[in-house]
């Protein structure tokens, strides 16, 4: 076994031990009622979610949220990458595009939530919020990535008379990939939480309404089960993109 592979396997084992430690700590804290009645042991939450009465409801809600988050994520990631590329290729447009991204990100959901609710159908709002959150993060990561090409390389491209398109395709994109994949990675949980928030303010199905119901009726197990499913969905997307990131970082390391 090669040394890097062994290193990665040891790292994965240590990471898994860390996850187990967190799960055990949660269970122990819940059993000891260390944090009060609103913090149940993890096994209670899992038992509640696995119960035949509840699992259909939770699975259906999870599927709705996952679908909304995925559509919003893809749309937002595409828009963020394209606008960042546009800002790089057309420098005069860059300041305006930056402000556009900042304004889109700066609109408070508590103010526009009610307007979205009356303007768009309930199924659209969660996708919209997920897309906007993803868009901003990916835009920021992509603009930072495009600026990450080493100065010596940029000067070399300029000295050799490379066209703007060549410089973009052969220098900016490879240099941006690690940062861009990082952005795509931490945007995944944001897409999930965006979908849930969109459901919360202006949707009718999914994990968001379950959370609202559980809070209003003080159903602690349901509250935690819904929150945990959202977290697991995020963790799944985050883990998959972590593998992609590792591959990109090894291939395109400076």
């Amino acid at each position, binding site marked *: 076994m090669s040394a890097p592979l062994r290193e990665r396997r040891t790292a994965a084992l240590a990471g898994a*031990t860390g996850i187990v430690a967190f799960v055990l700590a949660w269970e122990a804290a819940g059993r000891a009622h260390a944090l009060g009645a609103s913090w149940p042991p993890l096994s209670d939450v899992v038992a509640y979610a696995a119960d035949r009465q509840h699992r259909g409801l939770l699975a259906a809600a999870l599927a709705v949220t996952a679908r909304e988050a995925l559509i919003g994520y893809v749309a937002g990631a595409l828009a963020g990458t394209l606008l960042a590329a546009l800002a790089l290729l057309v420098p005069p447009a860059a300041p305006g595009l930056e402000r556009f991204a900042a*304004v889109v990100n700066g609109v408070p959901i508590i103010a526009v939530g009610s307007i979205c609710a009356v*303007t768009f159908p309930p199924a659209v709002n969660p996708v919209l919020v997920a897309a906007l959150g993803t868009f901003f993060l990916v835009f*920021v990561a992509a603009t*930072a990535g495009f600026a990450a090409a*080493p100065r010596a390389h940029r000067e070399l491209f300029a000295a050799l008379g490379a066209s703007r398109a060549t410089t973009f395709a052969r220098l900016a994109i490879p240099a941006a990939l690690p940062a861009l994949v*990082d952005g795509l990675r931490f945007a995944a949980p944001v897409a999930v939480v965006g979908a849930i928030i969109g459901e919360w303010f202006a949707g009718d199905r999914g994990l968001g309404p379950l959370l609202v119901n559980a809070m209003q009726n003080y159903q602690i197990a349901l509250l935690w089960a819904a929150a945990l499913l959202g977290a697991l969905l995020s963790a799944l997307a985050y883990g998959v993109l972590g593998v992609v990131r590792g591959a990109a970082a090894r291939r395109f390391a400076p």
Partner: protein
Amino acid sequence: MTRALTRAAAAWWPFVLLLALWQLAISAGHVQQIVAPSPAGVAAELARNPALYAGEALATLAVAAAGLVLGLAVACALAVATWFSRFATGALTLPALLVQSTPLVALLPVLARVLGYDVRTVIAAAALITVFPSFVLIAAGLRALPSGVAALAAALGASRRARLLLLAVPAAVPNALVAVRIAAPASVLAALIAEYLIGTAGLGQLFAVAEGQLDTARAWTAALVATALSVAAYLLARRAERVIGDRFRT
């Protein structure tokens, strides 16, 4: 003169576009006045009570800044912990994801019960929203050394501490600045939501009271001032990134 005008237009068109779309939506009659005021209505409201909005904006800004500093400090500590140990990566990533994937509106009641219905909860909310992206970015930055540098330092007998302070931390600076660009506007909006739900002061509370009285002009003005603060925080962080980041890039 014309060049300065062109440059200003190139930079600020999103705001003009937003105002135009807004006015168009109001004029076209799709949105009732009770749901949303016109841009002129908001401008008049702002001109009537400039001191009120300035005061509440300062309150929100102070709370957001405190949350931003706290959140970044926690994120740095977590990132350094994961730099030292993969075990910490495993133990910290899942809870961080759990906090990140739960809407702030659901976390706030829990936070308020623990910290109290006052400014501490608002600061905690602003901090919480900034931790996850900053943690991920800074942790990635700490490992973003040119290949071979870490191995060389180890071969030369540099201690882990020395490698952290002299190699990893400088390498993480560009990513940390990106983290600020994401976290600064987010902390303003998180402070707004927390003030809206439990606060005793600030733009969020102003919004909540105005909304309760169906005073949409005031509610919208408060929300727009918050948006302006968030955009200003972004642009300021962007400038800092350009100025400082260049010195740390290879």
